[in-house]
């Protein structure tokens, strides 16, 4: 259904009220180079609805976290961090294969903890770009005037950020696992430890994504968001480990495990120590028992739920 209107290649045609029947086609001089306005075409194709829109937002946000579909400049930092995250894994594999070691000299569950700063910087840089931009430039109403609802938006953004972190933290583990097989290490044992490592980084990814998005969503100014994420993740970890060190030095070892509840990363450390067979990495090799482990689990789940709740409340006000 393409009717040709006479004002085809005029930039200023918007201020006229064009009428396709006004000038008969015969009065126009044929000119091959003219751009023809082929008229408005209506859309009769499928409308895939809410679930599809949510999926599209998820994939757009996940790709966006790595700078895909964004400017070349915004690809630099996430890609660099991804490379930095994977490089040690390659080195570990190389050394393990070369020395014909019977196990990797860094455990799967310890890897993300060793490289926590890379994870924190990734989250601090990408969480604000995922949610603060929409708030700051007031793009959110464009979403909510479409079939998706608040819950779809929050779930898509939350899921995308958690998935981006999972890709970041799980890829090096995968490299190490492949390496362990190349080095002909015990398959069953490595597979089990790799699995435990994956569960651990999955928990870490969801928890960190929630915290990062909440802080970014509450601070529309991007700079503040970055600072807040770094502060909460890195400074709280530093403070907790310092206090744990003091407790250990003063023979107050009972407090060490409980202090671990006060920073996101020590929560993950405690949780994987209790349930995922990870080595205790608190001072004095303090073990988190199953009982305290349940408290850790409850707090991790509670924090994730709270982050979701805060995000939902945050977007209630935005509306249009």
């Amino acid at each position: 259904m393409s009717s040709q209107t006479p004002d085809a290649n005029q930039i200023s045609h918007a201020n006229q009220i064009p009428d396709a029947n006004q000038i008969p086609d015969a009065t126009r001089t044929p000119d091959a180079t003219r751009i023809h306005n082929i008229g408005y075409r209506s859309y009769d194709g499928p409308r895939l609805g809410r679930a599809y829109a949510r999926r599209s937002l998820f994939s757009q946000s996940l790709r966006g976290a790595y700078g895909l579909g964004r400017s070349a400049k915004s690809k630099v930092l996430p890609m660099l961090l991804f490379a930095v995250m994977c490089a040690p894994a390659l080195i570990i594999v190389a050394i393990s294969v070369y020395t014909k070691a019977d196990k990797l000299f860094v455990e799967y569950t310890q890897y993300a903890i060793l490289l926590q700063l890379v994870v924190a910087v990734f989250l601090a840089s990408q969480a604000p770009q995922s949610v603060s931009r929409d708030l700051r430039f007031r793009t959110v109403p464009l979403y909510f005037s479409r079939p998706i609802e608040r819950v779809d938006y929050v779930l898509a953004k939350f899921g995308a950020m958690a998935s981006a972190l999972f890709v970041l933290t799980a890829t090096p583990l995968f490299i190490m696992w492949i390496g362990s097989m190349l080095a002909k290490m015990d398959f069953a044992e490595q597979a089990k430890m790799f699995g435990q490592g994956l569960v651990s980084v999955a928990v870490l990814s969801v928890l960190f994504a929630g915290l990062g998005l909440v802080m970014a969503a509450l601070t529309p100014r991007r700079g503040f968001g970055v600072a807040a994420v770094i502060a909460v993740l890195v400074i709280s970890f530093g403070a907790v480990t310092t206090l744990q060190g003091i407790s250990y030095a003063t023979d107050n070892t009972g407090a060490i495990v409980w202090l671990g509840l006060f920073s996101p990363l020590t929560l993950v450390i405690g949780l994987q120590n209790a349930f995922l067979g990870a080595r205790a990495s608190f001072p004095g090799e303090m073990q988190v028992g199953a009982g305290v482990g349940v408290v850790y689990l409850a707090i991790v789940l509670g924090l994730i739920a709270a982050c979701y709740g805060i995000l939902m409340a945050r977007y209630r006000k935005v509306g249009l």
Partner: protein
Amino acid sequence: MIATESLSKRFPRVTALDRLSLDIGPGVTGLVGANGAGKSTMIKILLGLSPATEGSAQVLGLDVRTHGPEIRERVGYMPEHDCLPPDVSATELVVHMARMSGLPPAAARERTADTLRHVGLYEERYRPIGGYSTGMKQRVKLAQALVHDPKLVLLDEPTNGLDPVGRDEMLGLIRKVWTDFGISVLVTSHLLGELERTCDHVVVIDGGKLLRSSSTSDFTRTTTTLAVEVTDSDAHPDGTGALRAALATAGVTIHAGVEDGLPGAGHILLLEASGEETYDLVRDTVAGLGLGLVRMEQRRHHIAEVFKATDQEEVPAR
């Protein structure tokens, strides 16, 4: 297209909409009201994003209370405020928004290219939006509201912040949305004058109450006023006075009062336009006197004038 039945929206301290009953058919409908008259509240309710305190509303025959997502799939919305991220191109943004409306990826890209061309964005659509002029940004906002080929678009103050030329272009574009695309339009504004040329039907609300609802021709009949400004010449040192006398002789009603306080107000004649012939008459008279015609335009009425008219005539609301 839109039907509301004693629709009310009360906030703790304000009543935004007060028992508003409307029946809006296909075509271009203007929703006029001063700031805070309840226009934006109305749009939120129509999109199913804000529940009404009482009363009911239907859009495209669907109840806003229960069918919000279905309505939003078939309705486009252009916000009043800035809503465009500066670091993406118009194409990227509109493709993404098309997918948010449920269009498959290939269709989203195709419709985006079409829609941006229809709103008058060409090569610049690949550049980041941050570098666009206000007029171009308004076009992008309109494009994202049209990209999923809705049955109805809700445009909230689309001419805000535009210069007179940009305003006219935007109004022409809005007219085209209905005449060429067949998409019904509900457009809000606080300026009645600009809507009467664009809309088939105008609804005036104030303080959440329906003040007046009628087809544009009714408004035009009572409100068409021409502003004419002419130069002086050697033969007629007071060009305005000469034209006033000549037109009065020709039988044109000339309003005594001109807007005071505006620069050059003394040189502007306001006259009643009874039809096409008045325009010709003014042109011929000015030419006959040998004066230069600086401008001849339809006066843009402020909403306040309708209030005055309503007070005087008590025009019954439909």
